[in-house]
Structures are given as C-alpha cells and as structure tokens.
C-alpha cells in the first residue's frame, strides 16, 4: 500500500499533480474522516427523514382538521424555502436560543453541535418531500384492502403498520430513492456550518496545499462515484421489490 502512496509523492515531484490526501498520512486521515462524516450524516438524515415521512403521512390521514393543516403547512414551508436558509435558521437562530452546557474544558458550548443541527435541518427538509411520497403510496392501496383488514378486527394503527405501509412502500420506492439521492447531494450544504464532511475537508486540504484544481476534480469524481453507486444500488433494489404486473 505504501508503495502506491509513495508513487503519488513521486508523481507530485515529477509532474506537479499534487494529491496530498494520498501520500500524506495526515491529509489522508482528514479525507477519510470527511468521507465517513458524509456517510454518517446521510444515514442519520435518511433514517429521520423516512421516519418523518411515515409519521407525517399517518398524521395527514388524521380525522382532525388542524392536524392535517399543520402537516400541510410544514410540507409547503419546507418545500418552498431554500435548504441553506433553513439550515442557517436552525443553526444560528434556534441554536443560539437554546441553553448552553459546560464542556470538558470548563467553557460553555451549545447543547447541539453543527453536526446535530445539520442532521435536524436536512431531515426536516427531506422529510417534507417524503410525507407526500408516502401519502401518495398510501392512496394507491385500494379501499377494499383496508376494509378487509377492518373486517378482520385490525385497529387503525395496525392497518397502517401491517397492511397499508408495506404495500405502499413497494410502489413508492422509486420516488423515495430519488429523494434520498437528492438528500445525499444536499449534505454538502453542511459545509456552510462547518460540519467536517467531505467538501469541508477537501476545502481544508486545498487551503493548506494550494492545489484547488486537483482537489476540485477529485471531489467532483468522488461525489459522482458515490452517488453513482447509490443510484445503481437503488435501481437494483427497485427491480427486486417491483410488484409483478403492476405499473
């Protein structure tokens, strides 16, 4: 492995193509950390946004008028405002209002760090889209199926959890995957509040080494490959989950 890494140092000496995240152990660790932060942020947001989608779709089917209205208001608000401004609003406006806690060094630090705020903000953003996606999936489940479940004595929650949702999940998968791929691309916004994800770490490295061009091209390729793998995997999963003879 070291031989390969050293080759890139030689490459830099010979041609001036500087890829310090390959030959320099410190930069390499930064880049790897950044990569895993991106993955972690994506996974956390993915989990919570799907959760918001499922719960929101359930609330939207509520019989209370105001529950439906509030969910609708949330959807419209988060769909029609820039995610970056939402992120700033959460991090700066709401973040500064929360109480601070004493940290290990005796100083005051906010209760939630930038990673947590990025996760919250992006989950709400992607969740707003997921609610609509799940809702339309639920509407694709025929009324007769729900009635049959009712006749068998299922409660409303049981019907949602055991009958409607599993059926809906399979048809919403393409739309859901689309949104989740978008979510992964949106995690780059966390750069703005200094979450050390891939873009942020790349920025650190190019600030230290003045190799903007190489880092930029590497970053573009890295995201292209990352998202490409994700899209490919999702497509395979979609094919496997397809309901035969439907759509």
């Amino acid at each position, binding site marked *: 492995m070291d031989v390969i890494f050293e080759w890139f140092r030689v490459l830099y000496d010979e041609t001036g193509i500087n890829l310090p995240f390959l030959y320099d152990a410190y930069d390499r660790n930064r880049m790897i950390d950044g990569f895993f932060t991106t993955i972690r942020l994506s996974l956390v947001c993915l989990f919570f946004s799907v959760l918001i989608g499922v719960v929101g779709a359930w609330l939207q089917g509520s019989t209370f*008028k105001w529950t*439906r*209205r509030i969910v*609708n*208001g949330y*959807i*419209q*608000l988060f*769909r*029609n*405002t*820039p*995610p*970056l*401004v*939402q992120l*700033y*609003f959460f991090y*700066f*406006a*709401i973040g*500064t*209002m929360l109480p601070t806690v004493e940290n290990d060094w005796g100083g005051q630090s906010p209760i939630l760090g930038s990673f947590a705020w990025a996760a919250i903000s992006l989950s709400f953003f992607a969740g707003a889209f997921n609610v*609509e*996606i799940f*809702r*339309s*999936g639920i*509407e*694709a*489940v*025929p009324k*007769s199926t729900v009635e049959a479940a009712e006749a068998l004595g299922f409660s409303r929650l049981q019907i949602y959890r055991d009958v409607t949702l599993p*059926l809906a999940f399979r*048809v*919403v998968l393409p*739309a859901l995957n689309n949104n989740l791929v978008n979510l992964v*691309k*949106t*995690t*780059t*916004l966390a*750069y*703005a509040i200094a979450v050390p994800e891939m*873009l942020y770490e790349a920025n650190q490295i190019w600030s230290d080494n003045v190799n*903007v*061009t190489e880092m*930029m091209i590497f*970053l*573009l390729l890295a*995201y*292209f490959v990352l*998202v*490409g793998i994700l*899209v490919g995997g999702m497509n395979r999963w979609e094919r496997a989950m397809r*309901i035969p*003879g*439907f*759509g």
Partner: protein
Amino acid sequence: MSYKTDLPVMKPFKPREPEPLLGFRPWHFVVIALIAVFGPSLAFAQAGVPLLTPFAVLLDWVPLLLQGFIFNLAISFLAMALGTALGTLLGLGQISLSRVTRGVSWFLTQFFRNAPWLVLLFFAMFLLPFEINLLGLSIPFPDWFKAILGLSLPVMANVSEIVRGAVKSLPSGQWEAAESLAYSRRQTLWLIILPQCVKRMLPPWMNLYSILTMATVLASIVGVSEVMTLTGQALAAEGGRPELLAPFYGFVLLLFFAYCYPIARFTVRLERKFAVIN
C-alpha cells in the same frame, strides 16, 4: 396478463402534488408569520436594553435585503436561460441517431446530475479565471457571472433529462406517422415532436426553476453578495445581537416562500391542465 377486476391489488401510483396551503384564511398567515418572526425576539425583549426592537431594526434593513433578493432572482433567470439552452442541446444529443453523440450526451447529463450543486458551484468559482484575455482584450469574469455558470451546469443536466423524458413519452406512432408522410428527421423533430413536448416539459421545467431559485443562496457560500451574504453583513453591522438572528433569517425564508410558493401552485395547476387522461 391483465384483466379487469373490481378488487385491484393496487391502484396506479402517481406521485401526488402537495395540497395547497389549505383552508387557511389570510389572517392565519399573518398570525403565523408574526409568531415565527417576532415570537423569539419577545423572549429576548425581557433583557430591557434601550435598543431598537428587532422589528424596527429589520425594517431598516428591508430595502437592502430586497435588493439582494432581486439580485438572486437575476442570477436565477440568467442561469435558467443558459441552462435551458445548453440542456436542450444536450437532451437532443441524448436522442441522436449517432451512438457517439448519444453516449457523450448521456455521460455529461449523468455526470452533472449526480454531482452536488454546491460542488459544481465551487468548481466554477475556483477553476474559472477572473478574466479572459482575448485578442488583447481582457474580458472580466466577475464572481456573479461565475456563479451563473456554476448553477447552470446542474440545470443543464436536469433540462437534458426533461427533454429526453418528454420525447420518449410521446407515442411512437407520432414518429411513424411523420415518417409515412415523408417528413425528414429534422422536420419531424422540429414540426411534430418538440411542439408536443413543450406542454409536457413545462411543469417539470418550472419545478426545476423553483429549485434553482432556492439554490441561488448557495452563491453566498462562495462570496457573491446576494441576499444571504447581505443578511450576514447586516447582522454583523448590528453588532451580532442574538435576538436579531431569528427575524432576519425568518425574513429571508419568507421572501423565498413568497416567491416559490405561487410558482409551485401554478405548476400543479398546469400539470392538472396538461394531464393526459387515458
């Protein structure tokens, strides 16, 4: 095998458009906006400092912020125009008869679609020169122009997909009928296929525009002085009072909502109008 039955396993799935902001009466909005913008500042008002109230401060800065917002809109118009022009070409390339053109267009589309907007913006910002020397004439490249180029790249890729999708969604009978009437390929495309596609492309195109408008704030990260940058500067000029943060950022949210929400509603209406009933 398909047959008709009264008890379908599943009904057709169609991504549903969100409901309008509902039976809200206008005064509901006023109340919500007031709570959202001024509620947080009330909490700080107890400090009782003889400063201007957050609302008064915000009012002072509104003209400047609106100017910034108009700059955002200008960026979005230009990026959309450029992205649409390039994207249409790329989309037509994707349905070209030549394998090479098709492959290259497909790759470019996928590449720029899969890359995050912010990364593309950084790409354009840092890798384009600040001026070009052409025949002894130096053409300056201001940062806002580079931002437009950076934002138009993902727009281009998305428009390309919209064009391809619209052309593919037309029944193949259109092509065959045109061929039987001895239209050339170019004539078929320009006189028969594309005019029908415009209707199908309009709603997703408007969706894309709305997304682009919301992405223009990304330019603040790379230093273009649009509404987000100005907000930050205004907050700094006011001495970084924490009770100002919520009204200012809330105001920016409100600006974008007021602009993008009507577009979203209009798109839904268009979609319904153009829907093909089968």
